[in-house]
């Protein structure tokens, strides 16, 4: 019987050999949430790029990153926005800030949407996004042509958060951002004192929680169904995601097969 790890290795091999991004885009991932491999090789535009996933990242980011570490290219390929390092947004920001502290102005960041710029209210952004879809129904919605604010709830957290899916280009980005956003909740649950003494490293608290894969990331799609995040290509995901929910794994058990069922119906058959 083939193990999950071997299945995943097979899948990656296929991906590495297959230079056609489109086929890759519809290929079903086999890895279950919680499984991981320390290094992944992904083909982007013909050249293999190693994605180093820090050993500490388990469960959560794997669940939504089961193979889709490929970033998307924006602006017709003028600039490659492939983010190949874990937590790229955070790294970039730190560089900018330290540059500023040294009195140097930072070099222009790669073309990424900046949070809150241009200064347009969400109401207007959301309204215009709907208008654009109505007016240009034949075209695919441009990446970054609007904004996609979705609510994110976490079981047990006292309030909701909102994220703009447009500013992320892959599941990695989204998972980093969510980890940062919700780590403050898990601090409350576990007590910062406890976590600090456990290993002394500055791992995020959420990661500790997720060593046990207690939480998974799910989303509600346009049909109102709740699915596991990570099963479909990023583009398809942001086009159909209406809201996100970080739910306890125990509650999510029923989701996995349904998600695969649904994907099976809309994409090419899985090669099992």
């Amino acid at each position: 019987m083939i193990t999950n790890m071997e299945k995943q290795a097979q899948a990656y091999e296929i991906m590495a050999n297959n230079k056609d991004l489109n086929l890759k885009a519809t290929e079903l991932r086999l890895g279950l949430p919680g499984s991981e491999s320390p290094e992944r090789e992904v083909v982007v535009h013909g050249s293999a790029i190693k994605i180093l996933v820090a050993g500490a990242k388990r469960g959560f980011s794997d669940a939504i990153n089961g193979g889709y570490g490929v970033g998307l290219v924006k602006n017709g390929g003028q600039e490659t926005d492939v983010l190949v390092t874990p937590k790229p947004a955070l790294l970039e920001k730190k560089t900018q800030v330290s540059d500023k502290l040294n009195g140097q102005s930072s070099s222009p960041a790669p073309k990424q949407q900046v949070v809150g710029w241009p200064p347009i209210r969400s109401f207007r952004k959301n309204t215009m996004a709907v208008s654009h879809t109505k007016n240009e129904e034949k075209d695919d919605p441009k990446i970054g042509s609007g904004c996609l604010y979705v609510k994110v709830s976490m079981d047990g957290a006292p309030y909701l958060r909102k994220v703009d899916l447009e500013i992320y280009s892959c599941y990695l980005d989204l998972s980093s951002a969510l980890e940062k956003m919700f780590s403050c909740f898990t601090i409350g649950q576990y007590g910062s004192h406890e976590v600090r003494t456990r290993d002394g490293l500055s791992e995020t608290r959420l990661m500790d929680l997720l060593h046990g894969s207690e939480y998974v990331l799910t989303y509600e799609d346009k049909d109102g169904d709740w699915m596991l995040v990570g099963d479909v290509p990023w583009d398809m995901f942001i086009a159909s995601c209406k809201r996100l929910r970080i739910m306890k794994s125990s509650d999510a058990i029923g989701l996995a097969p349904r998600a695969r069922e649904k994907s099976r119906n809309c994409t090419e058959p899985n090669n099992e």
Partner: protein
Amino acid sequence: MALSFPEEVLEHVFSFITSHTDRNTVSLVCKSWYEIERWCRRRVFIGNCYAVSPGIMIRRFPEVRCVELKGKPHFADFNLVPDGWGGYFYPWVCEMSRAYPWLEEIRLKRMVVSDEGLELVSKAFKNFKVLVLSSCEGFSTDGLAAIAANCRNLRELDLRESEVEDLSGHWLSHFPDSCTSLQSLNMSCLSSEVSFSALQRLIARSPNLKTLRLNRAVPLEKLSTLLHRAPQLVELGTGAYSAEARPDVCSNLAEAFSRCKELKGLSGFWDVVPFYLPAIYSVCSRLTSLNLSYATIQSPDVTKIVTQCPNLQSLSVLDYIEDTGLNALSLSCKDLRELRVFPSDPFVADANVSLTEQGLVAVSEGCYKLQSVLYFCRQMSNSALTTIAKNRPNLNCFRLCILEPRAPDYLTLEPLDNGFGAIVENCKQLQRLSLSGLLTDRVFEYIGKRAKKLEMLSIAFAGDSDLGLHHVLSGCDSLRKLEIRDCPFGDKALLANVSKLETMRSLWMSSCSVSLGACKRLSQKMPRLNVEVIDEQGDLDSRPDSSPVEKLYVYRTVAGPRLDMPSFIRNMAQNPTYMR
């Protein structure tokens, strides 16, 4: 020593003084004036809900009828303030429900309002009349249902741009048949469809209805029915302005519009189908206010409308109007006071709309009364800004947003320091300014020297060093609100101007170079400021003092540190000091 005037006389005199600042000044004259004034103050405005507590307000002003509160910092509009920040209405309504049984009006901006809060409003205040929720959130249509059902004398329900959890349109049907007092209803931010017959009947039994802003779900074909029942309307917001092109529907609509002899303001216009635009032509000549900023119609159609509005004072429009449309505007609308141009496609690098700095220059030339500008564009030059400044020294609000951060003068590739410098030099009454484009410390030198009436300044991606911030804090005498993002401003300027911060309402700095240690020192030096560090990375307690803070919000307060901060916000006065 007896008073020169009896109290009643003074009170009567004070009743003519309505502006908040004037009343505040009156209260400072002497102790007896303070006492008299506080007992007869009926309207209270609190620009920062955390600057004071409900208890303090109630203790000082026992007979208030109208309360206006503002919560979150302005940058919350652009998602820079994380959810859970605060600005809760409930603590206020709890105490007011006990202290002000005769409260009539509540106006809130950027506050978190709950259904429980709305229900309490609807039940605690027997004579409640006006509810304005501007950019608020946290409530659902259930809360609205309570307001509709219980406020017997409701005059105004205005939800402008609030984020409402829209469970259904059923709330509108909760207005009882006996409710005939409605003068203003703004439900444009809601998405659910309300019962059309309920809406129709509500409008029909509200003879004093002057303002009606419908939501997108109200179909165009039914608009004429509503207008027939409310020909006295002064301001109308349409629903979706699209339907199958049918001449009979269009002429019905045109006829209904023509009956509205009092109509002065139009808005709405979502999903516009140009076929139906002529229906409004008959009212254009009377319009003073027009909001087409959701109308995705092209330049010729927009131009055709605005050129028929010679009395227009306020125009909001998308950049589809283009330079040609703005030029036409400058020739036709000589009474224009306010212009706001929004981007149709803000996230693409190259627009296919021909809107440049020239459009704004043209308007500045032709519209002599122009005072307030909000303009999104993709290119700007120092010469254009200088021309605008010289044309319109009467500007009091100038907000320019060049879409690309740090974009230079597109002609000379220089910074736009001189252009904005010209603005602050010529427009001596400038109260509000938003900067954009490539800017060095020099522009702040100009602002500090010249912008003496400036009350609100917004800065993004600008400046070279702390000197920039120092110029502003040390120079702008009237500054009340300063909001900064992504600028290399840090500790030196902040700590050199600590007392300035107590003369202002608030300071926001995000993605700048302010260190944690500086925030602590600021807090130590100025005990009447709340120095709040917002940082979602966690572990604020274990970070070194040299580490930069993500976001900083500083405001003066007499209420001390607030008690409702989420875990990612810390008040530096409460920060335990670690030996590092």
